[in-house]
């Protein structure tokens, strides 16, 4: 094992896969000479050259669409969006084209393409830079949505995403890039659609993904100090969702708190709560609860911003309520 930053883990995944398969290329704003807005593509231009690491004009619809056209004829593009906040410019390409071309063509065209970039709240970057978009993308049949929480998952999941033959929405928590974590030394991948128990426990299940895994783990630590053993489960892939592991955990703990950064209405947590409610109805000792981001565009002011993002004290309080301790 060795310790690397989240952004380095992503960089390794891209570099290793590009080394093995010359059909893979990386395209996006600032990915080449600038090493990426978040330095995920550091050194890749030098290593793979301008034909495989391509700086683009500022036009999301353009490089997303160009990537689709290249994927349709056999290449395997990795398209970096400087942030998922700006992906809406390319919504027609992502929703009407990437997600549907295989189905509409009767399976004649395959789209092995990864769309990746940062998402979720950032620090004091306000409404158009601090959005959680996973609920939107996970709504669309034809797309897979992947959201790693730590460097090990980031590398293993990105390698699987690059090898997958479907269009993948890969959302990297914007505030996770500098996080350090251990990763295996040799070659490894983590399959898409497989959740992971990040911390075993018996008294309550905390479900979170991306940055919210950190909040869930810190919440579990705080609860442990009070003698409560929380189990933290990370779906890792939002779509397809590994419902089985979530259900298995809740059947064991009989209580479930979903912590998500996105907006509450039609959020991913709402879907998970429905599935757990349906399958664990007889096992639950309390209704499934959700702690979500505030239902409004993100404010800039730091004090106000922090009020809008799920945090440990509120997660602890919500968990205790489910345990009838408050």
């Amino acid at each position, binding site marked *: 094992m060795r310790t690397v930053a989240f952004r380095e883990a992503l960089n390794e995944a891209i570099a290793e896969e590009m080394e093995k398969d010359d059909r893979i290329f990386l395209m996006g704003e600032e990915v080449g000479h600038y090493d990426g807005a978040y330095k995920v593509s550091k050194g890749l231009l030098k290593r793979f050259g301008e034909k495989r690491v391509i700086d683009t004009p500022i036009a999301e619809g353009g490089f997303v669409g160009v990537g689709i056209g290249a994927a349709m004829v056999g290449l395997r593009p990795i398209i970096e969006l400087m942030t998922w906040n700006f992906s809406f410019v390319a919504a027609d390409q992502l929703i009407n084209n990437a997600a549907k071309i295989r189905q509409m*063509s009767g399976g*004649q065209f395959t789209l092995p393409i990864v769309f990746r970039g940062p998402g979720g709240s950032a620090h004091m970057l306000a409404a158009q830079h601090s959005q959680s978009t996973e609920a939107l993308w996970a709504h669309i049949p034809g797309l897979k949505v992947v959201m790693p929480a730590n460097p090990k998952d980031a590398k293993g999941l990105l390698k699987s995403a690059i090898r997958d033959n479907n269009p993948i929405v890969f959302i990297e928590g914007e505030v996770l890039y500098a996080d350090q974590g251990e990763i295996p030394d040799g070659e490894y991948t983590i399959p898409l659609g497989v959740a992971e128990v990040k911390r075993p426990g018996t008294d309550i299940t905390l479900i979170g993904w991306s940055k919210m895994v950190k909040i869930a783990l810190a919440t579990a630590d705080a609860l442990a100090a009070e003698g409560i053993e929380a189990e933290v489960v990370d779906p890792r892939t939002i779509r397809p969702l590994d419902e089985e592991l979530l259900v298995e955990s809740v059947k064991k703990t009989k209580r479930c708190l979903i912590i998500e950064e996105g907006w509450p209405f039609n959020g991913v947590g709402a879907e998970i709560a429905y599935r757990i409610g349906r399958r664990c109805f007889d096992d639950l000792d309390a209704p499934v609860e959700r702690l979500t981001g505030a239902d409004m565009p993100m404010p800039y002011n730091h004090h106000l911003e922090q009020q809008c993002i799920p945090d440990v004290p509120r997660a602890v309080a919500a968990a205790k309520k489910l345990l009838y301790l408050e």
Partner: protein
Amino acid sequence: MKLEVTRVIDDEGRVLHPEREPALSSDELRRLYRTMLLVRILDERMLRLRMQGRMGFYLTSLGEEATHIGAAHALRDADWIYPAYREIGAALFRGYPLGTFMCQLFGNSEDPVKGRQMPVHHSVKRLNFVSVSSPVGSHIPHAVGTAWAAKLQKTQDVALAFFGEGASSTPIFHVSANFAALYKVPAILLCRNNGWAISVPSSGQTATPTFAQKAIAYGMPGVLVDGNDILAMIHVVREAAARGRRGEGPTLIEARTYRRGAHSSSDDPSKYRDPAEPKEWERRDPIDRFLKYGQARGVFDAEFVAHTRQEINREIGEALIYAESRPPKPPLHSLFEDVYAEIPRHLREQAAGLEAEIARHGEKVPPRG
């Protein structure tokens, strides 16, 4: 600025510019004429089927046959065609079977896209004829991406995107043109200026006198061509393709033609345009002009013309009998296929659920009509 409209023959089929006249064999001339006539007759017959309620929707190419069939002829088979939706002749020219064409219109069990797409939204990968994407202009960057892939892999292939002049108003057209020129990819952006975007005349799309001149802003050549002159189409698309193959980048072509029919079977142009206008364009009919040219060259005699028409009618009749006798419904299980490259667990569960439902309640039968 002023751009000359490239022509080879005049409205009477007389050669104006022998230096541009493509050297075509008699067989090639016959094949071009036959494909144009096929599209013309096919459109008439299919529109009638639509009016009889035998299919849900149809789009014709009436008056625009030369634009896309000429372009298709100028390309190699390995080159990629990204159609808008009024270029079916390009697929037929490459050998798309009529029976399959009609199965797609009916969305039946032998429809290659498995009953998923609206009629006329064909997709023929083996002919490098890519699926139609309905949001206007949204396929243009795909052609640029395909051309980019060709450049990267040094295949010498070219990608051509057809689109109407209305599509030139979409953001994605501008973005795509910019990318194509910036990356110098072997793409051809072929704007079929047919005068009308549903009910909006081409003058309602832009303040520039031509669409071709927009090319200057992106840094690529812009070519204006008579889209009803199939020889001129072949000439300019050949030149654009050769430029692309030489690594000199993309070309924007504006082909001036005219949509003599309705936008689609759901549209009635008599509500918004002077009927004298399409009448006037009948005089410049692309098939008549080419017929006169071929007659003057001694290739199209009366017997050939009569025989071709007869043969086309027979083939359409046979294809129609074939398509209408195919089982009307693609297998239900195909619903769950091709959403993803593999069938994921949740769709397998849905498939099992549907099977159980059918076992209990039988299959839903849609009402007729």
